[in-house]
């Protein structure tokens, strides 16, 4: 009994420690306080600064466009790659698996540095072209799409595909109507992962981005060094909005995928 209670207490304490900073910041984002600890008065000032600041809105839009754009390209590339590798000879598949694994295990700093050194130092490309940034983000994301599609291909019932061919479907129709639906969950979770990875990235972005472009990560890091308190506290509002979006998304996902038990096994 004591063991059970102390176990529960430990879990609750850990949850409090994890959420205290986020929730405290969310609380203070609705006040005029410029630092935590002061006794605040209620205000929506931070939210209006956030919405009316062109610089902040552009930065957020840029981050989202980059994340979704790169995730789309990464999903197409990664899915096609997984399909190709799956139907190729063993040594081709092994080679692709190995190369695909490099960005996964590699430190983001090294990935960013290496992409940057290839495109900028060797090929003399301009960062202002956004090409290095987009390539960097695809290198970061595509391997994870590949990794989430491969298991689905392996689980796939290959006799369905053969049956479709026997019944007269052309190979491309069979691929579209039989294979694609079976690997769709892998493609979707790969896409979601790609978006999250790109949104969260700091290192690859900082090595490859044009000087005037910022994502949320690079912007926040610069803002914490700067002395503009209204920007600093507007970021608290942004953090709160993201937190709420994440909570809503998780709740929807949980209700949508009622089969929590199955999910558990999937992990």
């Amino acid at each position: 009994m004591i063991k059970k209670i102390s176990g529960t207490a430990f879990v609750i304490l850990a949850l409090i420690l994890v959420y205290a900073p986020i929730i405290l910041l969310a609380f203070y984002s609705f006040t005029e306080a410029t630092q935590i600890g002061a006794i605040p008065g209620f205000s929506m000032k931070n939210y209006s600064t956030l919405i009316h600041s062109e610089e902040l809105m552009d930065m957020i839009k840029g981050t989202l466009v980059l994340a979704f754009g790169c995730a789309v390209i990464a999903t197409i590339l990664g899915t096609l790659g997984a399909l190709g590798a799956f139907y190729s000879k063993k040594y081709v598949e092994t080679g692709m698996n190995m190369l695909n694994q490099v960005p996964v295990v590699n430190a983001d700093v090294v990935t960013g540095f290496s992409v940057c050194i290839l495109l900028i130092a060797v090929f003399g490309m301009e960062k202002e072209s956004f090409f290095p940034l987009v390539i960097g983000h695809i290198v970061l994301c595509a391997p994870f799409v590949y990794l989430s599609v491969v298991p689905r291909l392996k689980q796939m019932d290959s006799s369905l595909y053969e049956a479709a061919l026997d019944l007269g479907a052309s190979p491309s129709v069979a691929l579209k109507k039989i294979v694609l639906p079976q690997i769709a969950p892998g493609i979707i979770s790969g896409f979601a992962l790609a978006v999250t990875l790109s949104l969260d990235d700091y290192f690859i972005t900082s090595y490859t981005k044009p000087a005037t472009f910022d994502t949320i990560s690079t912007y926040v890091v610069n803002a914490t060094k700067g002395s503009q308190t209204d920007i600093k506290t507007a970021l608290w509002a942004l953090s709160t909005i993201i937190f709420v979006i994440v909570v809503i998304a998780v709740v929807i996902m949980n209700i949508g995928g009622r089969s929590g038990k199955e999910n558990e096994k999937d992990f």
Partner: protein
Amino acid sequence: MKAFHLNRKQLGIPYAVFLICFVLAPLIVIIHYAFTDASGAVSLANLKAFFTSPNTIGTLVYSISIAVVTTLVCLLIGYPLAYILARSKMKKKYTIVLMFVMPMWINFTLRITALKEILTVIEGNLAFHPFLNTIIGMTYDFLPFMILPMYTTLINLDRSLEEASRDLGAGEFQTFLKVTLPLSFPGIVSGVMMVFLPSMTNYVVLDMLYNSTYIMGSLIGSYFSAYDWHGGSMIALVLLVIILAFTLISGRFEEDEKDRKGGALL
């Protein structure tokens, strides 16, 4: 039919080309730069410079100590959490696991900002405890990555082995030490992998918490801003070797695991 088989394989060509251009080629470029000097001649000067300069060696040691302490703290907090949650009879325990993972989806710079504000209130001036703050920051950032793989291993663990151990007379603690802990080792290894390597290079956490000491990540950046591609490549290469070593070691554990599972099936 034959023509088509060629077709299906061809789907992989764009990605294969992409991997060769932007994953393999950069690696080759890094190795090339690491072992040449500014004039392009082959040289071991960068290698020698790395291992003789007190600056770089100091950075390596500091990075490793931050990574070791962060990993230990994450293990000490994460393992009991994963264990308690995996063994809990609660119906909705999956929701609680999700709650520990959820912060992962909030941009880490924003999470560290939140942590920084709290630490500033508690400590007054962050500059007094740079090492401690860094460890707190890294732990805050990476704890979910530690909990998740350990939880997965523990929840899928064959409970009958524990019951057998108890039936054969082992105590609760002895069963944990001799049965549960070794069986959950693969989860520990992948958790350690996911925490150790990033905490060697995530210099943003140090940056944001006013720790001005360099770690391996910031060291690459300092060469980069000085346009010293050769020195920077050497640092990147050293990191790559460390990562490779880690991957090989953890790969071995995974294979052991597979063998064991195969053995169990027989």
